[in-house]
């Protein structure tokens, strides 16, 4: 508190290209002298990283593991762009310290579907044109996937209430609600991982 220098919270990005490989064995490290070893399980794969304890789960996913699907909007838990699942429950990854989630199962938008095998929510977002710029979309989709297993009522108003933690500055809300309702009407138990 007293003599600590004020440094940016975001650890220095790994020097490898952000487009580099995502092998689970490599050790991604930040330069901080306070770096600590942390093992995270993300989308079913183990990752060993050395990170400053200040590193949020969001920054660790993006900067250390190069999983850039999760987005940084407000960085204060107000916009939902960073939404991921921890043990199947949706959370704001910008308000989690990565080092506190060593024994947890973390799922990002990269882990729910693939371009050739979209999650039903992803497919519905495409079918319903549920986005404009797309920045909030990964967070919207992760919230929507979690919503399928939550006690959400059947009406559009219920979906709006359950999705209120995800802001869309383009205002694609009507189509987001339509996409979610389409998935809920099409199937009962979902492949919500």
């Amino acid at each position, binding site marked *: 508190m007293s003599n600590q220098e004020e440094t940016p919270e975001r650890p220095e990005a790994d020097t490898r290209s952000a487009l580099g490989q995502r092998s689970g064995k490599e050790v991604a490290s930040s330069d901080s002298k306070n770096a*600590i070893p942390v093992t995270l399980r993300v989308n079913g794969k183990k990752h060993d990283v050395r990170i400053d304890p200040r590193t*949020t789960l969001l920054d660790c996913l993006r900067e250390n593991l190069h999983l850039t699907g999760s987005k940084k909007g407000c960085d204060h838990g107000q916009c939902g762009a960073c*939404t991921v699942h921890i043990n199947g429950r*949706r959370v704001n990854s910008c308000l989690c310290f990565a080092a506190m989630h060593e024994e947890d199962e973390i799922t990002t938008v990269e882990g729910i579907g693939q371009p050739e095998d979209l999650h039903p929510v992803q497919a519905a977002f495409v079918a319903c044109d549920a986005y404009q710029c797309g920045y909030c979309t990964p967070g919207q989709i992760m919230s929507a996937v979690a919503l399928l297993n939550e006690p959400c009522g059947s009406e559009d108003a219920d979906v709006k209430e359950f999705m209120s933690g995800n802001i869309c500055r383009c205002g694609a809300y009507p189509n987001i609600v339509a996409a979610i309702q389409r998935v809920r009407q099409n199937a009962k138990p979902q492949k919500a991982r």
Partner: protein
Amino acid sequence: MKTFQLTRASDSAQAIATAAKATTAQQGAEIRFIGGGTTLIDLMKLNVEQPQTLIDINRLPLDKIEALPDGGLTIGAVVRNSDLAYHPLVRKNYAVLSEAILSGASAQLRNMATTAGNLLQRTRCMYFRATDMPCNKREPGSGCAAITGANRSLAILGTSEHCIATNPSDMNVAMAALEATIHVRGIKGERSIPIADFYLLPGNTPQRETVLEPGDLITHVTLPPPAPGNRSLYLKLRDRASYEFALASAAVVVTVADGKLTRARVALGGVGTKPWRSTEAEAELAGQPTTEAVFRRAAEAALRDAKPQSENGFKVELAKRCLMHALKLATQTA
């Protein structure tokens, strides 16, 4: 954000011994327990809180909700807000608590935030959150920028000339109306604190918000058995339909027999510097018929000492109508 040491508590005693080395458990504490982190990490990013040590208490066995032999309920400190709100016993016996929690924050935040963390939720006063502005709560003696500034969302009850910050929690308003007890373990042992004695008014020490001392760990909260035949509800008024703090809210727990209120518990949110139990309103309701005139008298009593600021005078009438409407809804089918 200032750097810190992150430790994980393996048992409560060790966590308490470590935390007891701090000079305060209030604003600016050097050592902090961390649960969901939804308040603390946010404030650390703003440099409003700068702990040197964080003790992760999420793996402590404080995550249970259990019925008590007397018919009450015990709620562990790290029970997540969403788990509490959706628990069958809470929905059945303490509807006001479920409704209050679900009216606050977002689904993501409720999945993270804990019971103890919500009890200790910090104000959203923008001057508290902006380190370049004066704030007696954040920096005692620096002054209160809110009193002469943007204070539309701030408190009208329990304020002082040093601080008008609102307690932002919805859960705590329901807890106040339900007469919850907060159980704390510290270096001198365990103690049980009625929620009415847990929060401090700002007075001239707004940096002190609760009675907690260094090392004090909230372990659980207990609720008394539900009053037989009671109806309870939470009514929240705000600028947006969802994901917004209350301008005014009311938690009511009432029992009606033969058209008369045999028991009433009332607490207000969004208007007080702490979760605002109103025994004055309760006294006006006790034994009275469920009429609008009675509800109006209760509302007048609850807001009698209101001290509006330059931009929040509307809250006086808003809070009264909020309470009256909550009482009407809670009694009309009882």
